[in-house]
């Protein structure tokens, strides 16, 4: 049975890959646009079916398959393969599900695109699905890194989908560079781990952690470097700056890659390698602290952002940090639960936002208003997503967030708990702020042409909304939080409601003036910092332009004008010297004969003086 599971998992992996190969190699097919989309959608749908079958009817036991990849003298140096267990089964379903819905949605969302562009888009999507599935199936750090980079590549390509927009090009490159910075820590970390243990595979590493071979000396550094990979990919402070810019990509891409799946790879990796992180408590402490800090930081930025996609992006950063904080506090299960639920409702929110943008043609929430009347369907599903994210029961966000708060409280990290609680409040606030401003507030522009999304976009939205509600109900009935103290449940609810009330008061009822609120100390300080994104973007731009490019120009100058200059100096001296000596060559044969004669003379004299000696 385990073999059957493994085969199913490989089929799930192979289907999108086959679609990618087909689209990548067969150029006429790719240039047909919608047909390419259908190829990719069919492949992912088939993959979803197999993944669901695996989740519901699989053997349930763990299965690992390994094949040698890098040969070595005594057995392979590294292997690739697949691991089927609780984590990967659930992720397979999530990834294929969201992928499928997003791809269907894209057919409607991008219907105005040129056929070759659309074909390219779906080829990237197929590659992404393959890479993400490969990532979740990874039985080793190395394979995880391989697919980790591939999903990064897809993210880069899809952010830059509108490649002739300078802002999109810039955002794509920025995303790649910044995640790459973390990834290099990741690869250095796994190389160090390999040097110390001789393997990349999780199973032997976990065994070593169990028997106590791990931690070895310097293990903390190794795990810290590996964690850096997650910092980049899951947008933790200070490498979170790429994610808001990544919203330059098409909205479905943001839903799939920058909300539901790829950005969770960091969380997934830390969850997967949790047995190793446990052996490095310092790193775990750091993960929790950075997670809580980033959660709050991103939430404050979300509160002041006017671009609907950017609000969602900051919210993603914040929610990812929630998961990280949970893992750092020793409750990876809660973090993983939040990962799954967040994947559902954040995809819903992004796709809903896409529908809104599609309808009104702007991203700025203050140029929207009363959209609920114009777009009732979209408004409803967006409301479902908002309620889920804000943590209103019985939607899943409430349960997973509550599980995290419980876990963090029980781990005794009160500081982290307080920060996360505050963030939960802010989350409710900024989500309802969007809701009120965009959907219920005053209309700023007439929307004669605004209408609900076409079916290809609406169906995925309703499916996601339905699944969100279902997941919430299942969690409510499952009652997984058996040891959650009642006061905590109440606190969670109270925080969400408080956020709702404040948003209502500030943006709907006008009881409190938002601007007045923002200008009172110390909120004014936070407000102005958050609006300037805590100067982090400026800092990175300065480091890039000033330090890195400046230094490279210096090196380039040195190379060209000093290292090479010295050489040219020598050759110029040679040329000049040749010029000087040229005068000797008079061109007259007799002058040369004088040389011969003197040579003869010298030879004879030398012979006399030296050969004569006894």
């Amino acid at each position: 049975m385990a073999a059957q599971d493994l085969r199913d998992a490989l089929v799930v992996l192979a289907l999108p890959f086959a679609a990618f190969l087909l689209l990548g190699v067969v150029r006429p097919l790719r240039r047909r646009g919608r047909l390419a989309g259908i190829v990719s959608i069919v492949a992912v749908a088939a993959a979803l079916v197999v993944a669901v079958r695996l989740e519901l009817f699989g053997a349930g036991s763990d299965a690992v398959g390994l094949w040698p990849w890098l040969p070595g003298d005594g057995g392979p140096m590294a292997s690739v393969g697949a691991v089927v267990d609780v984590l990967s089964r659930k992720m397979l379903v999530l990834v294929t599900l969201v992928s499928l819905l997003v791809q269907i949605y894209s057919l409607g969302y991008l219907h105005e695109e040129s056929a070759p562009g659309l074909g390219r888009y779906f080829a990237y999507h197929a590659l992404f699905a393959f890479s993400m599935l490969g990532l979740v199936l990874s039985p080793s750090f190395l394979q995880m890194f391989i697919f980790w980079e591939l999903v990064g590549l897809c993210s880069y390509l899809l952010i830059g989908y509108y490649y002739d927009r300078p802002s999109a090009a810039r955002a794509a490159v920025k995303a790649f560079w910044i995640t790459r910075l973390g990834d290099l820590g990741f690869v250095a970390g796994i190389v160090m781990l390999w040097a110390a243990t001789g393997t990349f595979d999780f199973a032997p590493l976990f065994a070593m952690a169990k028997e106590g071979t791990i931690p070895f000396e310097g293990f903390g550094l190794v795990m810290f470097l590996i964690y850096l990979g997650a910092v980049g990919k899951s947008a933790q402070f200070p490498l979170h700056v790429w994610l808001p810019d990544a919203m330059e990509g098409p909205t479905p891409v943001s839903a799939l890659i920058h909300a539901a799946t790829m950005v969770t790879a960091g969380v997934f990796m830390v969850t997967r390698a949790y047995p190793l992180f446990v052996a490095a408590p310092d790193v775990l402490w750091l993960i929790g602290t950075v997670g809580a800090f980033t959660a709050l930081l991103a939430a404050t930025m979300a509160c002041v952002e006017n671009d609907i996609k950017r609000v969602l992006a900051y919210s993603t950063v914040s929610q990812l940090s929630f998961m990280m904080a949970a893992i750092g506090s020793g409750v990876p299960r809660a973090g993983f639960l939040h990962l799954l639920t967040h994947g559902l409702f954040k995809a819903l929110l992004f796709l809903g936002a896409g529908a809104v943008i599609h309808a009104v043609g702007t991203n700025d929430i203050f140029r929207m208003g009363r959209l609920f009347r114009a777009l009732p369907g979209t408004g409803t599903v967006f409301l479902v997503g908002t309620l889920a994210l804000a943590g209103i029961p019985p939607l899943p966000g409430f349960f997973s967030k509550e599980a995290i708060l419980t876990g963090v409280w029980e781990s005794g990290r009160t500081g982290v708990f307080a920060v996360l609680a505050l963030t939960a409040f802010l989350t409710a606030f900024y989500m309802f702020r969007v809701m009120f401003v965009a959907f219920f507030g005053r209309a700023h522009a007439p929307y004669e042409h605004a209408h609900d999304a076409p079916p290809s976009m609406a169906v995925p939205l309703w499916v996601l909304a339905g699944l969100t509600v279902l997941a919430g109900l299942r969690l409510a009935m499952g009652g997984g939080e058996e040891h959650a103290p009642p006061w905590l449940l109440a606190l969670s609810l109270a925080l969400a409601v408080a956020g709702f009330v404040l948003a209502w008061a500030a943006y709907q009822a006008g009881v409190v003036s938002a601007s007045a609120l923002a200008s009172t100390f110390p909120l004014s300080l936070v407000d102005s910092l958050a609006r300037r994104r805590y100067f982090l973007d400026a800092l990175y731009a300065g480091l890039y332009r000033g330090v890195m490019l400046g230094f490279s120009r210096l090196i380039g100058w040195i190379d060209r004008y000093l290292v090479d200059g010295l050489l040219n100096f020598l050759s110029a001296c040679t040329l000049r010297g040749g010029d000087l000596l040229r005068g000797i060559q008079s061109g007259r044969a007799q002058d040369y004969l004088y040389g011969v004669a003197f040579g003869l003379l010298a030879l004879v004299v030398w012979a006399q003086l030296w050969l004569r000696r006894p």
Partner: protein
Amino acid sequence: MTDFLVRIHALSVITWSPFVGALLIMFTARRHPLAVRLIATVSVSVSTVLSILAYAAYNRDAAGFQFYEKAPLVEQLGIGYELGVDGISLLMVLLTSIIIFAGVFASWTVATRSQEFYALLLALVTGVYGVFVSLDLFVFFLFYELAVLPMYLLIGIWGSSGDVRPRGIFAWAYRETGVGSKEYAAMKLTLYLLFGSAFILVGIFALYVSAGATSFSFLDLEAASFDPRLQRWVFLAFYVGFGILAGIWPLHTWSPDGHASAPTAVSMLHAGVLMKLGAYGVVRMGMGLLPDAAASLVWLVGGIACINVVYGALSAMAQVDLKYVIAYSSVSHMGLVMLGAATLTEAGLNGSVFQMFAHGVMTGLFFALVGLVYEKAHSRAIFSMGGFGRAMPGIATAFTIGGLSSLGLPATSGFVAELLTFMGAWASAHPWWLVPAVAGTFLTAVYVLRVAKQIFWGPPSPHFSHLEDAKGPEWVAIVVLVAVIVVFGLLPSLALAPVDTATVPLLARILGP
């Protein structure tokens, strides 16, 4: 299969087939440009097919030098025509075949004196093959010179001149020497490489004499044991001599000028294969013949390689001429090659050899693409370009794949090479080498993507019109190279299995039992 290859003297055929092609081109194809190209294609195809067959037939269990051939040339001096390949040289032969196969197609559009161009190119290739397959140091050196000298004519006649402004304290020297012109580049490259080969020749003779002056055979010299002091000096001579060709800092400055000025196929071959020839020389002759010296001098090799990696990448970032960017990236990657070799670990040495291969293919692809862009846009100035992706999507895609391989993205061969080098670096006696290696890949990501973004992305540049994608034979070159990058990136053991059979015994000799 193996018997068949041995019977037809496969290595000799691989080596001399391009030379025969060159002769045929010179004597039969006058004023028939198509015939020139067909002869060239056929002669390199013979080599390519045979090297793929040899690669497949190589006995991975037996290891050692296979497809061995020997014929005495000058018996009194112990000079013989002795050929054989092990895992390392086999991969290099395959690389040479791939690059020249693509190179013939990439230079399909050479218009001036194409007869002489192809003849020289093919003669050069014979030299390269000869270096990789010959086991007699004297013959090795002859082939080495054959591989270096035609370069002068190829760059001097078919090259293109760049634009270097004389600045800095040596500005007058720049005006004096004509920096930037193709003649300058050709002369610089040739002088540098001949300067290096003088060291190599001295080293070869030193070994020959101190081993009893009876044989130039690599196998005999390998069996001899040399005095450690002599080993150190000869190792340094080999390191400098071959290192110049491999672009070691600070003797690398011939490479940007030379590669930037050279015509497409020559840049491909030079950066793709000839620079590897330098690294191959250090590994094969330096480390293979002088194990004690190798063990005691790797700190130098590795240290300089670290400078190469970071310095080359930073220099590449500062360039505004597209060809110079690629040329400096070669300097950086050759640093990784040398670094991998200097780690003296199985992973590192495998990584080094694999990097030679991966970088060869990748930089070949780069130069082919840059040549195409130059041919269509008549410019190499990066910051005047923009938005080419719309007009030339194929070139843009291939450039991106090459760039991704260059920055070590998984699923490309560059990743495997870099990963193995990292593994070797951290496992070596100098773990800190990991830091510049990793930093180098990050810097590579910065400059490669920056250049790709500038050229292919963004709004179309107003300076260019009538751009078009690659066409016809040019696609052959691009597709072959891209396919090799991806296939070897996905299945590295294709290359690593034979390489491993050569590196493990080599390491055993250096590190002792």
